[in-house]
């Protein structure tokens, strides 16, 4: 069974251990069709994700949803009303680092496991194998993409998430340019947003990013452990701006800034994505770097305006 997911907190090693095939949903196309249940101010990513699902862009049988943001937690109800072919698995994921909340999440995962397999020992054994396999793949991929420019990196990592394997990369050459370095971060980054990166790379080198669909997804490696410890790793170690408090995320990007000697920050957020758009000032204060906020809804009607602003950051 092929299961679609998009949130980085999805325990994909576990899905593999349950003989499911996880497919990360990173839409490349934009469709006009949308659900009547989304209001005009709903998240553009979720609206477009819905359109892609309705158009059966991916061959999936079900979708794995976590409860991180309001949109994600309410998406299941909309999908149930609109898309019949999909099985929907909704799992609670804590916003805070509360240990009882973790226990709640763990119990939900146990219930999910029971849908597929009752032998927990077997699952633990398979899980360890899958963690090892995925960690190896991620480490290999990290080595490959390390010397590439951001767009190429994003492309390869996307392919990896979709297919579950390292993409063919025989003759890749180092393609990192020597311009002023920026950190690029923000909402769920998909090929529809790539034009923005192209524009940025005219002026800057995107030396690091923290998108969960790009670097953040391969920056963390679960310990080879049994189920609870493995889930606890997801719960406690992977940074996300939506968690409360979100200090871990800030520490993560600060490490990137120090490592890559970055001077400027470009924050890219989708319209109505509160998680990032509320953080601009905090990022600026915490990182003590000039920060540019770019907002988009995939329409790119304002491409020239965005480029002017990027140019202004370059000159500043």
């Amino acid at each position, binding site marked *: 069974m092929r299961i679609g997911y998009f949130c980085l907190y999805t325990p994909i090693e576990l899905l593999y251990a349950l003989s499911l095939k996880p497919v990360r949903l990173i839409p490349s196309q934009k469709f006009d069709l949308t659900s*009547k*249940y*989304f*209001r005009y*101010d*709903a*998240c553009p990513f979720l609206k477009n994700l819905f359109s892609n699902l309705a158009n059966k862009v991916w061959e999936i049988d079900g979708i794995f949803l976590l*409860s991180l*943001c*309001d*949109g994600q*937690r*309410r*998406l299941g*109800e*909309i999908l149930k*009303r609109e898309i019949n072919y999909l099985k929907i698995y*909704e799992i*609670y994921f*804590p*916003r*805070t680092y*509360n240990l*009882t*909340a973790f*226990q*709640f999440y763990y*119990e*939900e995962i146990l*219930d999910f496991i029971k849908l597929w397999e009752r032998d927990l020992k077997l699952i633990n054994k398979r899980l360890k194998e899958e963690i090892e396999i995925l960690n190896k793949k991620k480490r290999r991929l990290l080595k490959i993409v390390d010397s590439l420019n951001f767009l190429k990196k994003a492309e390869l990592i996307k392919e990896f998430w979709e297919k579950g394997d390292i993409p063919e990369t025989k003759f890749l050459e180092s393609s990192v340019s020597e311009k002023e370095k920026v950190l690029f971060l923000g909402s769920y980054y998909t090929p529809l947003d790539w034009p923005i990166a192209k524009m940025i790379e005219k002026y800057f080198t995107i030396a690091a990013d923290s998108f969960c669909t790009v670097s953040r997804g391969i920056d963390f490696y679960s310990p080879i452990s049994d189920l609870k410890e493995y889930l606890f790793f997801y719960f406690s170690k992977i940074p996300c701006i*939506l968690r*409360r*408090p*979100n200090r871990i995320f800030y520490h993560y990007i600060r490490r990137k800034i120090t490592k890559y000697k970055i001077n400027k920050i470009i924050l890219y957020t989708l*319209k*109505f994505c*509160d*998680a990032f*758009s*509320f*953080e*601009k*000032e*905090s990022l600026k*204060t915490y990182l003590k770097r000039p920060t540019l*906020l770019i907002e988009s809804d995939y329409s790119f009607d304002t491409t020239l305006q965005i480029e002017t602003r990027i140019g202004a950051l370059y000159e500043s």
Partner: protein
Amino acid sequence: MRVDFFTWNELFQEIPERIIKKYKYYKRKEEWARYLSPPQTFAIYGMRHLMSLKFDSSLECLRLWGFVFNETERLFRAKQINKKIIAVMGDLGGIPPIIYSFNSLIGFYPDCLWWQPFFSENYNLFEVTGRANFPETSCYSRVVYATFLKKAYFPKPDLIVASTGASCDDYSCVMQNISNLFYKDKKTEFIWLEIPPRKEKRESAIKLLKENYRKLAKILSEVANEKLTIEKLISGIKRVNLIRRNYQKLKDLVGKSEIAPLGALEMLLLEFGNLHFYSDIFEWQKILLGILNLVRKRVKNNEGVLNKENKKIVWATPPADPLYLIYFEDKGTRIVGSEYIINQVLQIIPINKTDPFTALAESYLSASLIGKTKERADLIINEIKKYQAKGVVISQVFGASHCAYETEILKEEIEEKAKVPVLIIDIPLPASEIPLQTQTRINAFIENL
């Protein structure tokens, strides 16, 4: 009778001095504890919007307004008389029963200050959030951040409790920014609590909430320097239950009576009084009881504040601008039911003598934002049936996270199951009038009820 602001002021002149002196907060005897002021005072303080609203002419309601608008002063006074101030955010009503079980603690929701720019018809707080680079397309609750910066709306809290999970995302972001303000502040502790967004696994959800409350009670004990016994907590819960019961009686009387005995604006203030009792539970209890008795009398005498012909409607999600309630009433409706996203404070807490924390957790699971939108729609449908309403108004805020996903489902569920029309309106930024286009839509909706 409903009167305008100017008549309301004139009526105040007729109130004898001894009555004005009679009502005091925090059970204090000093003159400074008076809260019954001429409505003009509030307008002079900046609540310009009052001049566009209509009010119940009774002394009981004047007392209500005086008490509500006196809250800022009251909170500063509380600090002066050595009470500890607890700012509670996000959970809307789950925690105050614990806070008010302590003698020296005062809890309040800065969240309620989202009404401030509307009552004052002033953009200043929005400008502050603008300078903080908060998105303009987000819930008006963002102004709460500005109130923390301004330091004028409440004293510095001794403890801040922020709940996230089943709260709106916008407000979760606002709370995160507020927590950043206190990151290096050693004097004010900031704690995060988790609200489970779902209730299918009831036991786990209750366990989580219960642990939150236990943990919080321990911290509150330290802040208050006072031990919280089970007996004290039960007695605190009973006090809260009494208020919730009286409010429910009032709501039923207002909703089921032939003529509306009380206006929607006062009912909105009364419903939100269940949150933190406007920072003085004992005085609030008396104010609520006074209004309940007034309404009983009016119902008995078949007296009302609106026309008998006004059509019954249910209101979902609280309107940021109170003017809308008045407009709907003026145009021929009466609001009989409500789902102001605070269902959790309308439930009686089932007192469990062995473990009141479990009782609090069980009760809180009824929260409007816990669970599916369909469940929230059921709450609205129950109100429609209970009070025989002819239509529903859902007010929302452009950019507010939950509105974007739930409104259409609510509409569909209500129209299918309750067979009544639903009007969805966006409440715009503060203004002295309702936009003409919205007025036309409202009028058309009312004509079709």
